[in-house]
């Protein structure tokens, strides 16, 4: 970089994701805390809805493109777009440019947004240089690598590195942490029996790790794993990794009552 580092705090537009918005606002607040602790100014545009992935992956390119345009319009003014999800973040970063590539103007705007869009945890470590968090969690956790985060966004070491700095926390790796949990967005309702067979293997691996909490960076996967663990009567909690890193584990775990 040839420019002098800006003295101004980076202005982050937080794309909460539709699942966090509807099911678990706490992840959004955890993201805000982590970003503010790292020196960012955070805004949450009110006009955000969804990244459009359900339409995109269902073959509905036209609706996906229309949704992408509303996301671009809502977020392109910020220095960075940060997403507490590798999957939704991946849609914006890896797929918007191709989705809008045929349109010269929107294609360029999609490229520009892609360049400044990041998944939350990797943004903290790789862009802001955060090496440690000040949080406490008394318990053992196992971390599930959500597919898009791992394979599209390269998120693997970053969450584990930050978790190592949480006081009182022990990491117990599960077998096949990098294997899909069977959520797959619309897949889990289009092919419920297949999805179930896959998540059963995942909860088996989670239980075998001996950890008392499973963490991940994507709420879709977490809802899938939490729902299966609860249906099986396993006393293992599920949380978004940001909740633990932000020290905001006083809220009930996913699917638990207050």
């Amino acid at each position, binding site marked *: 970089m040839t420019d002098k580092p800006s003295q101004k705090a980076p202005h982050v537009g937080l794309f*909460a994701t*539709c699942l*966090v*918005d*509807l*099911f*678990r*606002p706490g992840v*959004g*607040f955890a993201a805000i805390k982590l970003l503010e602790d790292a020196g960012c100014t955070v805004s*949450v545009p*009110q*006009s*955000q*809805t*969804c990244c*459009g992935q*359900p*339409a*995109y*992956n*269902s*073959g*509905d*390119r036209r*609706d996906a493109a*229309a*949704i992408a345009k*509303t996301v671009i319009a809502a977020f392109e003014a910020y220095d960075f777009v940060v997403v507490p999800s590798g999957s939704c973040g991946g849609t914006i970063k890896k797929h918007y440019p191709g989705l809008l590539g045929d349109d010269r103007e929107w294609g360029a705007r999609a490229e520009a947004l892609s360049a400044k869009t990041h998944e939350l945890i990797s943004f903290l470590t790789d862009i802001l240089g955060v090496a440690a968090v000040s949080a406490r969690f008394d318990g053992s956790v196992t971390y599930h690598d959500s*597919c898009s985060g791992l*394979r599209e966004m390269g998120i693997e070491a970053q969450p584990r590195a930050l978790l190592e700095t949480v006081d009182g926390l022990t990491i117990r790796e599960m077998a096949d942490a990098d*294997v*899909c949990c*069977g959520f*797959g*967005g619309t*897949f*889990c*309702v*289009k*092919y*419920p*029996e*297949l999805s*179930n*067979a*896959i*998540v059963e*293997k995942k909860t088996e691996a989670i239980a075998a790790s001996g950890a008392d909490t499973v963490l991940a960076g994507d709420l879709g996967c977490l*809802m899938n794993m*939490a*729902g*299966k663990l*609860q*249906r099986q009567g396993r006393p293992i909690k599920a949380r978004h990794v940001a909740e633990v890193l932000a020290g905001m584990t006083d809220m009930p775990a*996913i*699917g*638990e*009552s*207050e």
Partner: protein
Amino acid sequence: MRITAPAFKENAQNALTDLHLQRALEHVEAGFIHKRAKVVAALPEFDALRDAARDIKNHTLEHLDLYLEAYEKAATKAGGQVHWAETGGDARAIILDICRKAGAKTITKGKSMVSEEININDFLAENGIEPVETDLGEYIIQLRGEPPSHIIAPAVHLTKDQVEADFRRVHTHLDAARDLSESTSLLAEARGVLRDKFLAADVGMTGANFLVAETGTSVIVTNEGNGDLTQVLPRVHIVIASIEKVVPTLEDVSTLLRVLARSATGQDMTVYNTFSTGPRRPGDPDGPEEYHVVILDNGRTAMLGNEFHDMLRCIRCGACMNHCPVYHAIGGHAYGTPYVGPMGAVLAPALFGLDEAANLPNASTFCGRCESVCPMRIPLPKLMRHWREKEFERGLAPATQRWGLGVWAYFAQHPRLYRLSTRLAIGALGWLGKKKGRFRALPLAGGWTRHRDLPAPSSRTFIDQIRDREQ
């Protein structure tokens, strides 16, 4: 084989409750994944080799017409006869004609997925010619009247006990008290039975992993050596291969073989890599008198240059299915086409039609593990998504799904409406689920709640809570 892809959901359901199959599938994970990981880790330049392999195929596909013609010229010069087949029907007719002229009663076969694609076994049998599969896995499934369930390990869906039972059922000329408890004794028995078949066959048919344009050579890789006996012993050798198997040079083959064996079976090199160029020459100790190559298109030229072009790089290693969570759950037969797993989900709609195979590209979580191990770097999830787009454009997706998606997409494009409706829906659901924190059942969410609880939504959305805070 008979295409049953339209019944994918029922097939999958049956597979999930098939205990033999589920036991057999455990070996896929242990057998293939770890072996591949080990040899890949031992070769620092593996990723560079993948790039080189991809570039070879990309270059070839750019000039496919040229290399196919060069291949034909070289193969003809070596004394071979090249036949062009536009459709599976054309290929069947050509092969039958060659067999009839040779007066063939039985033909031995090396493992060939293209032969499954054109359903040659049933066709030959209907015409009074007995096809005998000589690859151990293919031999086993032929005894059972089943199609392959995996492109390189056709009988991977079976347990050893099932194979033993089949051998006892069919090989009634052997001592009933013989010991078949070990895999090696099963292998020895199959070898003994097949030995006579090899010697009796009038025609031997193999596939081709590669056709080499500079020399007119066909290349097969096997771990059993059955391919060699198939193509060397009978009087006539027929190679059946599809157009994208051609590569420019022997040097290119050596690069591709290095990624193929590692990706497929986790071997540094497959045990037998057999190169055949033309029929027996004067002075050769063995080899066929006639050498025919049937080159099949069957819809592939239509893929050249369209959104499925990348799929033509596939070298049929099977790594994508070996790493696919859906394949692990149900095995290959549920797909209902010869090509299964992620590569099948892309190829089958192109070869057999989207109406037949639309389920396959949908039955993926898009986890991307297939793409991450594909030696040819084929973007399989992207190509599956392209099929979903075609399906959507043609209105083939179920009406309820399209309608639901349409309503949701409309709201997602209108943030104020979206806010209002989610506020109402989530408010009510959140209130209902507040006490337990989750639902065990919920109207319209049966697909989810049949197998897992659904976490209750928040009674107030994140965006609304932010607005409250800012006001």
